[in-house]
């Protein structure tokens, strides 16, 4: 019975693809002169591999692909699976397509672009991972932004005072540690408020965000205003052998420490969450705390530890801003990334790999915006920048299914007496 419902939804998407495909084939591709090409380079320098793509024909091909996958979606129930996959792939195809169209007549470095996406996605991914630790145990964490901001501020403050007394790398390392612990302490405050005193978790999170803004701008005005000099950041680390690999080498293996630790944390979180005792207990506590309680799991303890870990990771995300990227601290320097991280987490359905995917999408979009400014696109760059968001949201919402949060999220746990 229920395939009819799904089929109907698929039909809507199929029509969407059909329309978009026709628009690309008929409307857009013809606007580019036949000889106009976009040169995609893979690396820097003259020796780097290059691919020249004729813009018009590329768009035409993508358009045709859209039309075909749309028709496939309308072809009947035997084609539901292939059509779904075709459309998901079609959704992903929009990213290179936008880039090719935007860079028409010029050349653009794909590797830099990818690297930039991953780099800009790093704090978002860290925030998403932080959110997953917390929310999987049933505690909403909208305070990631505040935890990051506090981490960024106190991490840099530490460096500000240590920088002259210790070798730079040592001072940086200790500063990152301080940032991480700052995040953890902020999270403990969230824990005390929302787990022990059972304050509404949104209210508690908001309190922490406001607190972080106030405290950090106070600290900056009192102690950090004189900082102009230096701008020291964490050093890049080239991973031997791996960094020499073609394509992935320069994209992945010549970066800064927090970038690497983000990937490590994604993998560790995935393994812990789905393959260890702690992860199983965390998920149980987030879904049905009373059931966990009746098998002897200390719900309060599990939540505290998870919230604390969440804060540590958010603090590391904060360090990315002040210590890995900028080498300084500005008011509100996290710039809403903590909230975008929550979006990435939900987008990834509360899974670490999904969260990473979401973060990379946001990172790509940001990188695209910068790229457009460099290429001097006549359109407002914000407009092209939203294209990947819109497409991904539509495709994911419609074809992949909706995100269901942990069932006990937001509910304080009260033991019976």
């Amino acid at each position, binding site marked *: 019975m229920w395939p009819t419902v799904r089929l109907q939804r698929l039909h809507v998407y199929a029509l969407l693809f059909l329309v978009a495909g026709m628009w690309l084939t008929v409307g857009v591709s013809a606007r580019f002169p036949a000889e106009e090409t976009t040169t995609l380079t893979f690396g820097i320098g003259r020796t780097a591999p290059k691919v020249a793509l004729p813009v018009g024909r590329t768009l035409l091909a993508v358009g045709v692909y859209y039309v075909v996958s749309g028709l496939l979606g309308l072809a009947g129930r035997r084609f539901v699976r292939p059509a779904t996959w075709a459309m998901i792939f079609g959704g992903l195809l929009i990213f290179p397509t936008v880039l090719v169209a935007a860079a028409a007549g010029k050349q653009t470095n794909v590797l830099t672009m990818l690297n930039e996406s991953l780099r800009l996605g790093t704090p978002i991914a860290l925030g998403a991972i932080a959110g997953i630790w917390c929310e999987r145990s049933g505690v909403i964490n909208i305070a990631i932004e505040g935890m990051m901001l506090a981490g960024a501020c106190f991490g840099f403050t530490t460096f500000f005072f240590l920088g002259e007394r210790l070798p730079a790398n040592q001072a940086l390392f200790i500063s990152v540690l301080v940032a991480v612990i700052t995040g953890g302490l902020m999270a403990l405050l969230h824990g005390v408020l929302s787990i022990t005193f059972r304050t509404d978790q949104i209210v508690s999170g908001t309190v922490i965000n406001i607190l972080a803004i106030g405290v950090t701008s106070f600290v900056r005005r009192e102690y950090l205003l004189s900082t102009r000099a230096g701008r020291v950041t964490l050093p890049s680390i080239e991973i031997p052998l791996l960094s020499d690999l073609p394509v992935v080498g320069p994209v992945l293996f010549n970066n800064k420490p927090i970038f690497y630790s983000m990937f490590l944390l994604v993998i560790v979180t995935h393994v812990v969450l789905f393959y260890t005792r702690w992860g199983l207990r965390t998920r149980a506590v987030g*879904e049905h705390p009373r059931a966990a309680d009746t098998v002897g799991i200390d719900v309060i303890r599990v939540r505290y530890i998870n919230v604390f870990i969440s804060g540590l990771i958010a603090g590391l995300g904060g360090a990315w801003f002040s210590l890995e990227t900028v080498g300084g601290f500005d008011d509100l320097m996290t710039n809403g990334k903590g909230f975008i991280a929550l979006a990435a987490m939900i987008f990834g359905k509360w899974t670490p790999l999904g969260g990473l995917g979401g973060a990379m999408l946001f990172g790509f979009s940001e990188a695209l915006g910068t790229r457009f400014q460099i290429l001097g696109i006549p359109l407002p760059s914000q407009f092209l920048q939203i294209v990947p968001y819109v497409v991904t949201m539509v495709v994911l919402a419609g074809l992949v299914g909706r995100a269901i949060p942990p069932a006990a999220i937001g509910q304080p746990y009260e033991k019976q007496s």
Partner: protein
Amino acid sequence: MSAHVPPALEVRGITKRFPGVLANDHVSFTLRQGEIHALLGENGAGKTTLMNIIYGLYRPDEGDIYVRGRRVEIHSPNDAIRLGIGMVHQHFMLVPTLTVTENIVLGHEVTRGPLLDRRHARERIQELSRQYGLLVDPDAYVQDISVGHQQRVEIVKALYRQADILILDEPTSVLTPQEAEDLFAVMRSLTAQGKSIIFITHKLKEVLAVADRISVLRAGRLVGTTTPAETDEATLAAMMVGREVVLRVEKAPAQPGEEVLRVEGLRVLDDRGLPAVNGVSLTVRAGEVLGIAGVQGNGQTELVEALTGLRRPESGRILINGRDVTGRPPRLITEAGTAHVPEDRQRDGMVAAYTVADNLVLNTYYKPPFARGLVRDEAQVAQFGRRLVREFDIRTPSIYAQARTLSGGNQQKMIVAREFSRPISLLIASQPTRGIDVGAIEFIHQHIVRLRDQGVAVLLVSAELDEVMALSDRIAVMYRGELIAEMPAEEATREQLGLLMAGVQREEELVHKMGVTSAHAEGENG
């Protein structure tokens, strides 16, 4: 049992006070090694409190617990589990998004290095499953399996923790009669292999069928312990309630009159957008009770919601007294003379934070005499409230007490009072006696029959087969969103209904009869 074997479990003088309530009052009882000991009592008699004390969820104010002859202190479920006590809660303690295996090992995980050892766990579960005849699928997600299956998972979960004292809290309330029989077989196999079971229930038939000994709790006190051979239903009911109870509903033959409710080809979707009611057609005439039997979750909820205007049907027609009310708002349907006793009384039947008096005028407050223009007439509301509290014997300290402070039975009486005290021609009662005590059940049943005799058409939806059989003049069985059979109540047997509820049609005659009813239904559709 020979005298030197210490009892598996013994409690002495257990007392537990909650603010304003004495939940357990010096309760002492003994669970012998290898027996099924039924603990019988009304809701609020203190059964669950006592079990939560034994399982370490509550601390007793007074009294001692002995396990296998040794005095023990149980501070938490962990202590209980260590002592070999396992509990299957009335509301299953399973995490829907985890697999059967994950749920079973939760809290007692086996690991290999830092990782969970799923293979080892699965083997152990399959072993237990074979040993006790408890069929479970280790890799299924709990949210995808049936209630009976979930219950087996709960039992395996306790056994996995090497429990040899099992507490089953109202285990049959969610099962079909056949599933309950299967459960009893499992219980017997468990006791045959040396486990001891405390079986909590308020169903007298089951107690007599399966228990070795029976203890009855009333108002926190242990009234007595007996065996099935020495007692019968009436005696047990009297022990539970403290007075004689009429178990059989006395009713004269129905005198059906005009057709009041007519439903044609109704299709309704559930919250997830999947079809829950799939082409249901039925009629209820004045002065008769149509009972709809069925295991919970077969579309009854959505059917009732559609009939009462709480959920918009996809297609089909609903007529009340010849008037088409399909998809009309609840107030219109109420004013058309429909009373609704909803299955979830706390959610749909009352406003917990309102007073009893306000709840009693919840669907009439805007009309005279309770309102004059925009102003409420408090005196009228209060007077009406006092009258209904008296007439329907609602036990409340005052008409201004918040509805949430009432016991379940009294909340239900309050809802019944509100719905039955209006001039109505149709009563839609969904699980009208779920979770309430024998005394209140008797009272509500009598009122339903009285309404029927006054010429009200009654649609009764209940998962309690006994209730459907006791009250109905005609019985229909709902299975997977369809009415798969309909028959006069006097022709229906428990076995036959039980099979139909499970979606099985065994007897030739039954198949034949169904052919007739579905042809009848099609005729109505066309």
